[in-house]
């Protein structure tokens, strides 16, 4: 369990990283891997599932890509922001509370202290929490290369298991999330066999109420149900305009989840995952609804 030999480069600025990456990939035709927190990449290298020519360490760009700021109701998160920052940062807790809540389910403290949001999104495990949150809130990924910059919405970012639209000469630099609207609540519910394991099923929800207390807008996303996170928001649109009881939500979700067909693996077969999806999405929607009802404007 030792990686194969590779060259190691550690650029100090984003500009340098983009230009070195371009050179190696586009001009020399080499296989390059970007190293962020290493929490997914190192096992992949050690098991020789990936055998790159060059490892390009992004950790020197922490100053440029590590910030979390809010600007016009949008939260901008640098790709090198660590899981623990997302868990504890006041801006995240206030404007993207579901992300802070989701982080408690991501691995263990040691993993959260190194792993990054960029690595987590690009690794694109369909059971991972941050891709799910990005899907729920329709986050935008900023991808830069020496040649330019593009913005990809979450709905187009995740292609399949462990595959995204990121090109070999591109770096994910920033992720943008809309701040939670007024009279809203968010929630995430997960089931894993042990605390810190990847989810067997995970559901995240956001509910926004109108002034009369009816649901104006409902969003739901499911993880671990297929090759990418599932956006179920149009399925739960029928909740809009209603004031549902928990039991009604549970019934609706049992119906809706019959339409998804998750794959089985050694930990859980398809029907069990489907079962979990119904339970967890009902719990997440109910909790989000309760939080929306308790929403108060903060100073």
């Amino acid at each position, binding site marked *: *369990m030792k990686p194969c*030999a590779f060259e190691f480069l550690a650029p100090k600025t984003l500009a340098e990283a983009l230009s070195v990456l371009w050179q190696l990939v586009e001009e020399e035709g080499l296989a390059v891997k970007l190293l962020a927190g290493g929490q997914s990449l190192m096992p992949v290298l050690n098991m*020789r599932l990936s055998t790159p020519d060059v490892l390009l360490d992004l950790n020197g760009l922490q100053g440029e890509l590590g910030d979390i700021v809010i600007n016009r109701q949008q939260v901008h998160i640098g790709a090198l922001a660590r899981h623990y920052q997302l868990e504890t940062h006041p801006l995240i807790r206030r404007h993207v509370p579901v992300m802070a809540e989701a982080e408690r389910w991501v691995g263990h403290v040691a993993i959260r202290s190194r792993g990054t949001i960029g690595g987590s999104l690009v690794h694109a495990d369909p059971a991972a929490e941050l891709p799910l949150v990005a899907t729920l809130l329709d986050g935008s990924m900023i991808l830069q290369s020496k040649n330019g910059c593009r913005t990809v919405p979450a709905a187009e970012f995740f292609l399949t298991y462990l595959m995204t639209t990121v090109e070999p000469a591109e770096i994910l630099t920033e992720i943008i999330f809309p701040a939670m609207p007024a009279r809203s609540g968010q929630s995430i519910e997960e089931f894993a*066999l042990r*605390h*810190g394991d990847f989810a067997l099923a995970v559901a995240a929800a956001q509910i926004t109420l109108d002034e009369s207390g009816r649901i104006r807008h409902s969003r739901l996303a499911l993880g671990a149900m297929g090759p990418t996170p599932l956006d179920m928001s149009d399925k739960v649109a029928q909740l809009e305009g209603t004031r549902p009881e928990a039991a009604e939500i549970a019934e609706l979700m049992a119906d809706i989840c019959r339409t998804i067909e998750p794959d089985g693996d050694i*930990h859980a*077969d398809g029907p069990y995952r489907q079962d979990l999806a119904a*339970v967890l999405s009902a719990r997440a929607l109910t909790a989000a609804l309760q939080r929306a009802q308790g929403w108060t404007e903060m100073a």
Partner: protein
Amino acid sequence: MAYDYVGQSVRRVNDQRLLRGQGQYIADIRRPGLAHVAFVRSPHAHARIIAVDTAPAARVSGVLGVYAADGIEFPALPLLFPYRTLDAVTQIPFGREVHHVGEPVAMVVAENRYQAEDGAAAVHVEYEPLPAVAEMKRARQDGAPRVHSDRSGNLAASIMQNVGDAAGAMQEAPIVVNCEIGMGRVSCAPIETRGLLAEWSVRSGDPELHVYAATQTPHMMQRIYAELLHLSERQIHVQAPDVGGAFGAKEPFYVEDFLVAWVSRQLGRPVVWIEDRLEHLLTSVHEREQFHQAQMGLTRDGRILAVIDRFLANTGAYVPWGVIVPVITSTLIPGPYKVPNYFCEGLVMYTNTTPLAPYRGAGRPQAAMVINRLLDRAADRLHVDAAAIRQRNFIQPEDFPYQTGLISREGTPMVLDSGDYPALLKTLMQAGGYAQWQEKKTRQSASDRPLGIGLAVGIENTGMGPHEGATVTVGSDGQVTIVTGAASQGQGHETTLAQVAAEVLAIDIDRVHLVEGDSQRIAYGTGTFASRTAVVAGSAVKMASEQLRDKMLTLAEHLLGTRREFLQLAGGTVRVVSDPTRSVSLAQLAEAASGPFPGSSYTLPVDPGLSVTMFFTPPGATYAAGAHLVVVEVDRDTGQVNIVAYTAVHDAGTLINPQIVTGQIQGGISGGIGTALLEEMRFDEAGQLLTGTFMDYLLPTALDVPDMTVLHRATPSPLNPLGAKGVGESGAIPSPSAIVAAVEDALKTEHAVLDAIPVRPSAVRQRIRMASEPQ
């Protein structure tokens, strides 16, 4: 009294060093010119090797040598535990036929592990795949593929126990209950994987092999090396440095142990191999996998009349520790209960999977599962309490020594030495709040998160022979050194064995030091496994210390001119009671006993040297016991099982160090939680391992192990001078059964029957779904 060390929770002397990262494990040992090994392992569960092309690997940078399963003939590993009906197949290093995925077919030695792995990736092996069978039930069927092409079938051994007339008694029993249960295969999974460093030298013209090994059995390794390499034991030195856990994985002798030593001689360089986690999960021994169909006959008032059990046990491709595990199971099913008529038949099957051998508990958790689940079924049927039916059937304190009528694993009549099972269970009921939990359970039964209560009592045969020795020596600085043939993998021998000697010698414990795991420091040793060190090595230390004390007093009488009735030994000094100014220190005694200056005559009344060696040979196993009470909460919607309370009461005989004993039991219970709820090594039908990483093989972590209450209720053993019973495995024995019982109890409304462990949430959920669906 200041020197009453036995029974005190003395702090573990090694922890400071180990917690500060100053341990010396195999991977920490450096040698000039050390070369590294990587193995090429079979991707097939069963195949013939047609050809191996090592040439591309030999050209890889840093590679020093490539050795493969063609052209080299090695003998098969010796059979360690013969058994009457055993048709033994042991592994052949670099044999031409591989019998499970992961068997080594080639080895690459290089300047470092990275290059060795580069080389291993470049070795090309041509296989002729053969039909394979991974499941023991399938292996037993007519027409199943043969695990070993040169055998006519897949049966490794059949085991039978017969007491009284079980069939007849069953037929006449007014109440008969059945239980079918499959137990999943688990891995030992110590923190430190296996590892080995071998180095050859020449002394007086003879080759000498020095091996550092992460092993539980250094003397056994020495003996096997001597046999396989045609050397004398004096030419082989096996040393176990710090060893980071073992749980059975480091007990057998593996082909890698042989090949690494062999290749070091070929190359003329010291060579090290550190097993990685993939290799560990794939090739270090597994355990537990058995399938039982059992039946119990009872009177209407709940007295056991007969038990009949038929089981299959998987031994994988070989028998690295004989068939000890299923034999132990067959002898321990009756456990702490009076079973007047008992019949058990076990079939041990070869399969094309990783071999099975003892893991902490070694066949006893399976036995405890069978008898306790039968009693649970009987309690249900008779509408009596689970504790009450156990109390009705216990062997009573006055029945000891209790003749079970069985033949033990050693081939001698099996006799239980001591215990007080009724008191054990009574203590458990009170300490665990049984009555209160029952009330709470009733209140919560209609909720989405019902409670369930489980109970199990199990016994363990511990402290087995043949022997262990101890040499206790006082040095010229007055410090005491103990040398034993045991080997520690973290159990705390440095502390507990020192406590025994320090108490006898009335000396401060920090002046007592332990040396173990070294084949050249003491001529014989059995090793550390089967919960035996406290009992066997501990007794040897006690006996040697007592003789040493006697010797010291004889010498002091002579030097002080005072009879021993008037002398007192304490704090490293022998004093005249009436005149404390007249004294002699241990250092002075040791000095005197080493003799005067060279050339003079030795005239003292004791043999030279303040050193005594004694061996303890236990007359039979001593039986430890444990009773466990567990309360779980089950989430009806997800099937998740949460342990909300865990209480255990153990009889480990005399406790040398209660805190260490408690720690051992907590560790055992943690293992039991894994066995019951999480851990399973799984293979597909073709024999491919599906759980090759810790993402798929789920060990309970600190977050999954609840707080537990562990209490002790000792009945000292009459079979050894300490009165101790073994404890290393105890916690793992009743725990799986208690946990499964609790989950089943929580699903009472669903009438769920759990017939396999580990009990996964998906299985729980499936039972709930089935119950809620209209019939």
